[in-house]
């Protein structure tokens, strides 16, 4: 007879998990206490004040205002505590640390496709090194899916048409379930995979065997020439299109007057339907529409390439501080406080 609870599920597997479990069980204790107290009180009243005489009329007790205030006030304070703790935990789950490595995830009915920045592709599997924060940029090709790793206590819906992000850091080598948590049609319950958390040494070996044909950005560079992007987007001097070097993560002014930060979602939308999103000072009619011509895979590769360009200075050399702050996403968040979202708001 197996234990109803898988022993593996009780151990620590990710960095948010201990905090999550602590909070969860505190809440369970609060709930159990309240429920038990009410149950006790119900049973006590039902027994102690049971009707002893069919015509009995008990004293008709009236309301005591302090009692009302007490049992409105105390629960509310407990609720507030739960709210704040829950909110803090949520922000921890939502906001990746600065040193997080980005991995792209594509969901489609009914499989998970993973693209590592080093070019390795996986299906229904994700290999990660232990002790390294991983940020997942996820997009769906069809319906809404949800990336769910119970052992890590994380879940994020994966939407069509927009990147969503989640992060985790595995603490212990092991193999963990990956589920789709948002109902997505016929084989929803089959849309699952495994997260392989490997020790750094094992991970390095795995990468070597991976047989990547060049990094994601390299693939993007090929596409960049294949789709003739390079005809207009020059890396030196002025072309018909903006110079993309250093663009990613910077703040630009659009023709419709908005100021936005160049991020994955903006780039994706601009590549697909450029109109209205063109940077001020360029002709909006030059850039063709790539809607229907690029797959989500190719878009990811192109964006990875543009992101890699973003780490260079416009002169075309690596910026001296590029190693110090390899994550343009951070820059992007910094500057967002002043700017607006690319969504048009």
């Amino acid at each position, binding site marked *: 007879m197996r234990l109803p609870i898988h022993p593996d599920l009780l151990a620590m597997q990710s960095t948010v998990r201990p905090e999550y479990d602590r909070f969860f069980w505190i809440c369970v204790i609060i709930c159990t206490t309240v429920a038990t107290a009410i149950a006790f009180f119900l049973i006590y009243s039902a027994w102690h004040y049971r009707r002893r005489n069919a015509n009995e009329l008990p004293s008709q007790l009236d309301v005591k205002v302090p009692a009302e205030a007490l049992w409105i006030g105390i629960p509310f304070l407990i609720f507030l505590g739960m709210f704040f703790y829950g909110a803090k935990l949520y*922000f*921890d789950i*939502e906001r990746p640390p*600065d040193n997080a490595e980005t991995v792209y995830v594509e969901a489609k009915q009914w499989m998970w496709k993973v693209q590592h920045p080093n070019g390795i592709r996986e299906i229904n599997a994700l290999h990660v090194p232990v002790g390294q924060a991983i940020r997942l940029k996820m997009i769906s090709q069809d319906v809404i899916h949800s990336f769910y790793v119970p052992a890590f206590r994380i879940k994020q819906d994966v939407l069509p048409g927009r990147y969503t992000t989640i992060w985790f850091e595995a603490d212990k080598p092991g193999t963990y379930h990956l589920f789709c948590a948002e109902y997505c049609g016929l084989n929803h319950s089959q849309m699952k995979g495994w997260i392989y958390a490997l020790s750094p040494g094992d991970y390095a070996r795995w990468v070597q065997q991976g047989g990547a044909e060049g990094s994601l950005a390299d693939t993007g560079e090929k596409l960049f020439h294949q789709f003739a992007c390079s005809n207009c987007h020059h890396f030196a001097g002025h072309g018909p299109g903006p110079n993309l070097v250093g663009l990613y993560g910077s703040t630009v002014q659009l023709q419709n007057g908005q100021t936005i930060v160049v991020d994955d979602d903006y780039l994706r939308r601009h590549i697909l339907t450029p109109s209205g999103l063109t940077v001020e000072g360029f002709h909006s009619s030059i850039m063709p529409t790539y809607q229907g011509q690029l797959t989500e895979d190719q878009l990811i590769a192109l964006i990875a390439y543009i992101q890699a360009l973003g780490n260079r200075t416009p002169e075309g050399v690596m910026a001296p501080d590029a190693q110090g702050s390899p994550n343009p996403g951070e820059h992007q968040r910094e500057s*967002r406080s002043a700017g607006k*979202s690319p*969504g048009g*708001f």
Partner: protein
Amino acid sequence: MTEQHPSLMTIALTWFGLLGLTLLTSLLGLVNLGAMNPTVAVIIAAVQASLIALFLMHALKGPALIRVIAAGGVLWFLIMMVLTLTDFITRGWLLPFGK
């Protein structure tokens, strides 16, 4: 049957007011005010709607219950509008704290 109908004068004035506002909004529409165009138009429409509700639909002189119902409807519509927009407007904003 004791409730009073608005006088002919009230009805006529409301009508003139509504027509005037329609003319105003139609002419303002021809001027490019940028983002103010739809804003002004909606505000004028709200004024027109209030005129109709208060004077032609007797919300002003009718029983208080009617005003409560009407105000409730508007309130609930605004709840839906505002809370939905909290998501769409703040979606790209910076996260305040975290790691």
